[in-house]
C-alpha cells in the first residue's frame, strides 16, 4: 500500500518537475491541485499519461480525472482497483 504511494510521489515529482519538493513533503491526503501541490491543467494531462504508461490505465473521460487526482491516496486507490500492469 505505502510503496505504491511513495512510488507515485516519486513519479509525480520527477515527471512534473516539482524540483522544490521531496517525497517527505507530500502527505498522502494533500490536495494535488489548488492550494496543495499547486498542479495545473498541463500537469493533469501528464498524470493521465502517467496512469496509462506506468499502470496500463486509460482514462477515456477527462472528467474522471477530477475524482482520481484529488490526492495521492485517491490515486493509489484507483490504481489498485484498475491497474493492468
Amino acid at each position: 500500500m505505502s510503496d505504491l504511494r511513495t512510488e507515485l510521489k516519486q513519479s509525480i515529482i520527477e515527471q512534473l518537475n516539482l524540483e522544490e519538493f521531496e517525497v517527505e513533503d507530500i502527505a498522502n491526503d494533500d490536495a494535488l491541485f489548488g492550494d496543495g501541490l499547486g498542479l495545473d491543467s498541463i500537469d493533469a494531462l501528464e498524470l493521465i499519461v502517467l496512469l496509462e504508461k506506468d499502470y496500463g490505465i486509460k482514462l477515456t473521460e477527462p472528467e474522471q480525472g477530477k475524482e482520481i487526482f484529488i490526492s495521492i491516496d485517491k490515486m493509489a486507490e484507483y490504481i489498485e482497483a484498475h491497474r493492468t500492469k
Partner: protein
Amino acid sequence: MSEGYKISDFVRIRNQRIFHGNKQVFSSEKPTQGFLKESYKFLNISYPKFHKMDALCKLGILATEVLFKNREIPADTALVFSNSASSLESDKQHRILMEATVSPAVFVYTLPNIVLGEISIKYKLQSENAFFISNRFDARLLTDYSEILLDSLKASAVVCGWIEWKNAEYDVFLCLISKEGRLSFSEENLEELYHFENE
C-alpha cells in the same frame, strides 16, 4: 520619431554568463540546464513553475528578472522578441517523444511565443507582444516595431531583443525601452550592444 525613446537597460545571457548592462553579474561552469538552475537560485527567484519550462522560457524569465528587478514595470509593457530557431529544441524533443509517449508538458512549449506568455503571467503584463523569426539579429525590425507600439501609445515601455536556444547553445539579448535613460533607442545602438559581446 524615436528620439524620445531610450535603451533604459539591457541584459545578456550567453556562454554561461549573465551581464546586466556591461557588468557581469553571474557566471557558472555548468552546462545549460545546470546553468539555468544555478542562475535561478542566484537571482533568488521563487517561482516553482520555472522548473517545468523549456530552456527558452527559462531564459526569458531569467533575463526579464534581471531587467525588472527593483523597477516598477507598467502592465502595458510590450514584448517584442525574435530568434532564428523558433522553438526548435522543444519541437525536436516532442518529435522524439512521439515515438513512445507524448508529453503534454513538452508539447505546450512547441511554439516560440509561449515565452512571451510565461513572462506576461509572471509579471502580470497585459500588453502587446510579438515574436519574430529571422535569420539573424535584426535591429531594424525590432526598432521599427517597438517604435510603432510606443508612438501609437499601445505601450509605455517595450522589452525587445533576441532570445535563442539552439543546439544546446543560448544567446539572449533583451533591452528595456522607455523614455528613461541616456542611450538613444536606435538601430545602430541596438546593433552595437548586441554585437559587442558576440565578437
